[in-house]
């Protein structure tokens, strides 16, 4: 496709010039990296030489978020973000998002939309992947013409289109067009606010306004785009609505989304599992999204209040091998933007949950009602109702199928001190303890990392081997590490 058109070179150049930025970072996701040089060249032609352009790639976290740390390395004044985005608010640097323009057959899409609208008999709310934002006006007009040529009879269906928010984001609240049409104040994020605002919704860069007296449940959702995290986000957030997806690549409507619905149930399971956790890791999954720091603090506070132990990790994109290096942790909370937060793979040793789910799991007063939130912006405002009035009744664990009692770190200070010193104590008594350890194959539940280490079967060098007889002298391996000579005999 036309580079100029697809990457909106003119608009970007105009944006840079109008704001007078001189150091600009261009952030590309991996799949667009190959176009980066051409984009830079094209931009260069439009801009004068005083503007310095930097290409950023291979972000530490999800490529949908603005890599603010990367941009700060070059003292960039603004970031131009290309490709798929979650439109999470930034915390320090203004950013312009270029969504890209994916091809779509607008007439086909309009036809399916119309057909679906007639079938479901409910008003339809049209949501879309941001890469299709460019085609929405066309679909709208196609829909109108289709509807009018439909046998004179007045179409009973009603279509409401979401708007793509403004593609320009400035650090939260400092400057920026709060009342600009098509964009809603970022600071109000809650699904339902007070009376006059109660009809405004926004999710993943889309926003819409429902007519007075309507709720989301009255609408059927029609998603245009791929089955990607943005879509999962919508499915989870509006799980009580009927949702269909129009796949623009294959030009067909996918009505059966039971697999998507299963995600929600699966998340529910993970929440239950998190309730049983004693040690929880907080994974830092973003260094850009506004409020992430606050969220991390809130999470650690929540964990401590719930009487559990928390550890914070910064490890870039989490993968099974990285997380399995901490087998003592029972669950991880992934603090990141809405679209990278959902990490569910059976490959992970411990489940990875979102901050919202953590709130459900750790705050004993809260209940899983089906409502779901992905953005943590709104979680920040809702301070947990913990107040630590934990009922004394034992907690029912669905994982173990019975009532269990939580280990409470706050039992008394003495215990707490003991834990810190657990490793020290054990090493002091290493000689006595060691024998017991090798004897039993059971492990007690550890309350902290130190305790877990103390209960490991391996404590370091075996000075006094179990066998007093000197070991036999053996010939070692020879050959290359990729396959020693003796290993070939196994085949």
């Amino acid at each position, binding site marked *: 496709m036309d580079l100029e058109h697809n990457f909106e070179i003119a608009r970007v150049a105009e944006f840079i010039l109008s704001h007078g930025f001189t150091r600009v970072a261009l952030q590309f996701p991996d799949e667009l990296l190959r176009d980066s040089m051409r984009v830079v060249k094209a931009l260069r032609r439009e801009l004068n030489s005083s503007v310095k352009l930097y290409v950023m790639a291979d972000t530490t976290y999800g490529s949908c978020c603005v890599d603010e740390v990367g941009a700060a390395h070059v003292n960039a004044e603004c970031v131009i973000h290309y490709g798929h985005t979650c439109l999470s608010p930034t915390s320090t640097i203004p950013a312009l998002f270029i969504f890209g323009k994916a091809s779509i057959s607008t007439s086909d899409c309009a036809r399916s939309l119309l057909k679906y609208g007639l079938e479901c008999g409910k008003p339809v709310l049209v949501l879309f992947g941001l890469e299709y934002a460019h085609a929405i006006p066309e679909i709208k007009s196609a829909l109108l013409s289709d509807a009018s040529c439909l046998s004179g009879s007045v179409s009973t269906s009603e279509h409401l289109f979401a708007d793509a928010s403004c593609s320009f984001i400035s650090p939260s609240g400092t400057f920026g067009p709060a009342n600009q049409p098509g964009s809603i104040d970022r600071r109000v994020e809650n699904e339902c606010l007070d009376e006059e605002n109660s009809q405004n919704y926004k999710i993943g860069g889309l926003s819409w306004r429902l007519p007075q007296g309507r709720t989301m449940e009255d609408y059927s959702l029609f998603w245009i785009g791929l089955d990607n995290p943005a879509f999962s986000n919508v499915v989870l957030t509006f799980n009580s609505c009927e949702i269909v997806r129009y796949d623009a690549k294959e030009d067909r409507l996918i009505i059966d989304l039971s697999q998507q619905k299963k995600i929600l149930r699966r998340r529910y399971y993970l929440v*239950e599992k998190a309730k049983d956790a004693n040690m929880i890791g907080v994974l830092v999954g973003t260094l850009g999204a506004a409020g992430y720091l606050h969220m991390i603090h809130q999470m650690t506070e929540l964990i401590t209040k719930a009487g559990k132990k928390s550890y914070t990790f910064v490890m870039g994109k989490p993968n099974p091998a990285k997380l399995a*290096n901490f087998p003592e942790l029972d669950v991880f909370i992934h603090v990141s933007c809405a679209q990278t937060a959902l990490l569910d793979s059976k490959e992970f040793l411990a489940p990875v949950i979102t901050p919202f789910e953590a709130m459900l799991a750790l705050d004993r007063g809260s209940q899983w009602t089906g409502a779901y939130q992905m953005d943590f912006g709104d979680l920040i405002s809702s301070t947990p109702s913990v107040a630590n009035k934990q009922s004394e009744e034992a907690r029912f664990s669905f994982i*173990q199928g*019975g009532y269990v009692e939580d280990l409470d770190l706050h039992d008394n200070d003495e215990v707490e001190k003991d834990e810190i010193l657990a490793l020290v104590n054990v090493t002091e008594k290493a000689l006595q303890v060691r024998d017991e350890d090798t*004897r039993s194959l059971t492990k007690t539940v550890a309350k902290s990392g130190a305790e877990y280490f103390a209960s490991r079967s391996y404590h370091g060098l075996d000075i006094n081997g179990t066998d007093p007889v000197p070991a036999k002298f053996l010939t070692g391996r020879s050959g290359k590490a*990729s396959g020693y000579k003796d290993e070939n005999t196994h085949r």
Partner: protein
Amino acid sequence: MVKFTADELRMIMDRKHNIRNMSVIAHVDHGKSTLTDSLVAAAGIIAQEVAGDVRMTDTRADEAERGITIKSTGISLYYQMSDDALKGYKGERQGNEYLINLIDSPGHVDFSSEVTAALRITDGALVVVDCVEGVCVQTETVLRQALGERIRPVLTVNKMDRCFLELQVDGEEAYQTFQKVVENANVIMATYEDPLLGDVQVYPEKGTVAFSAGLHGWAFTLTNFAKMYASKFGVDEAKMMERLWGENFFDPATKKWTSKHTGSPTCKRGFVQFCYEPIKQIINTCMNDQKDKLWPMLQKLGVTMKSDEKDLMGKALMKRVMQTWLPASDALLEMMVFHLPSPARAQRYRVENLYEGPLDDAYANAIRNCDPGGPLMLYVSKMIPASDKGRFFAFGRVFSGKVSTGLKVRIMGPNYVPGEKKDLYVKNVQRTVIWMGKKQETVEDVPCGNTVAMVGLDQFITKNATLTNEKEVDAHPIRAMKFSVSPVVRVAVQCKVASDLPKLVEGLKRLAKSDPMVVCTIEESGEHIVAGAGELHLEICLKDLQDDFMGGAQIIKSDPVVSFRETVLERSSRIVMSKSPNKHNRLYMEARPLEEGLPEAIDEGRIGPKDDPKNRSKILSEEFGWDKDLAKKIWCFGPETIGPNMVVDMCKGVQYLNEIKDSVVAGFQWASKEGPLAEENMRGICFEVCDVVLHADAIHRGGGQIIPTARRVFYASHLTAKPRLMEPVYLVEIQAPEQALGGIYSVLNQKRGHVFEEMQRPGTPLYNIKAYLPVVESFGFSSTLRAATSGQAFPQCVFDHWDMMSSDPLEAGSQASMLVAEIRKRKGLKEQITPLSEFEDKL
């Protein structure tokens, strides 16, 4: 109408020698509840006329509807015995008043846990056996359970009316049948010889066997008749008793007793001559309405009827006459009072079974002496739903001390470890309650030796607990109960309206509390699972869940889900290898099936992670032919660190092996919980670590590298060792007449079951059939069977073992592979089994 007041009841509670705590146990439909009615009627709680019909202890609507008992129900009864009746009683007593704390228990095998809970808090058991059906599978199960708890049994041969009315057998034949019942019961009891408990067998001539007709409300022991005839013949009562049972014959012509049948036609067995025949005569006279003959006969027996009763006809007349002549309550009460132990006596030997702590501490002594002044020791055996929804009574037995309203108690839960704070609460008892028939009475306090229900503790007691005084910090808990059945049948439940989910969650929590056997869990896919002991149990649980615990909110239940196990048929075809994500570490492994019987030994806990390694290697080498050294190299058991699979280290001279052991174990716990076929638990697999290549830098062989790799290599070795599925199998016992056998066999065949024992019950037209039936096929089995045999056969199913399915799950189109696909679909996994190539790496 109730013949006693709460105050009277409370007073007698202090006389520990005048209390009997007993449960009524039997096979399903042998007449426990009906018989209990007569006892309740004698205490005046229900009218004598309706006894046997109301089934007073079946308090739930569904119990009445189905005609079976579901929950065990406790009831306290007060009796005033006559001096005459107690004349022969040698034991200690204080006055003539007796308190019987009676618990009626369910007979259906699905509710065995209720029986277990009942037995724990009683000292004696009335074993009810249908005289025609004889000792059945559940009779045996509950009897064994009772004896295991050191509960002294007495027997009643029930449904005598069937002999007279339905079968009309003659005396000798009836005697043989009864003799057989007693003998069969004694065979079971004889295996529980115990120096403390003494001889537990029952003997009619000693008065520990009664003969009853629960439906008609009459019963007798040989004592009744012995007393009558002793005075008549002028012989000693005890001697007369002996003559009334066994090989003692009387010839009225010669008026002589012989120990052999003389051959003379008038010579008859003592029992037949003096017990059976007179009863038969009376019954026949009543049934034929020969009132002119009846009245003189009754007069002779010293039975006087009220005038209005004289107008009764036929069956009603017979019932009334028999009830007046041989009231069931008298015979049974006498048997209980004379032959069942009082708490004071029973606790002396039961303390060993009950108390977990040292048997010479203050608490053990208090229990042993049933000391009301000692520290409180109270065991809560079950939670009974109260009338206000969602609350529970904690029901249990006071073993020592006193529990009173407002008392502050220490609640030690099942996971309490003395000296720790886990599972321990200190709370106030809001109210102490006793059951008087259908209504509850609040009492000030309840002393030891009695059953009691408490209000206000339900939040802190999950299923059972031991209570003691607040300050008694050294007390050990009372031993947890062992259940004979396990929850194997599972259904997934969800609510019809999505927003009812919180109600469902709350309901499941309460359900789990109300029944010790039900398990509520959640699947990986997020479905709520309710597991029960059998189809019927589950049905009742779900009904309770919906109606009582969720306030009627609609639920949808799935078809029953059966869990399978994954195992291997033979040793891996080759040593498989997997590489860590960084390619620097390699694990080599083989899988092989565990020796036969070893998984069961692990299940039973004979071999486990907590054993002394020396003992373990002894058992393994002696019984299972393991190498002694190898037995020391077991790394772990799994899943959940105790399951019937293990990892054994077979490597030689591998550097850093100790360091990765924990990681391999973690990978094993994970893999053995979710096998490669359908993510079901593994069973009976031994994984042998053959060789390990590790990177020299510790950071490159950390958990992150090893744990996922270990999991992959476990899967790879499993898949190369001819993986198989195992399915759970029931042991089914069916009792039916000969003409129903054909139907039973065809239904069993159809359901993949196979019969391994068929036996005719001597003296009856009934056959006893034992068969194995896959649990998967058991759903709807009862109803199919009933239909095929026109209601004559009633099966009892108990989980028995895991059976390997012969078909290969890796072969497309085989039965096992279809099963695997089905499970995977339900769990939301990819339908195809992940191929071996995903787990195994090449050099």
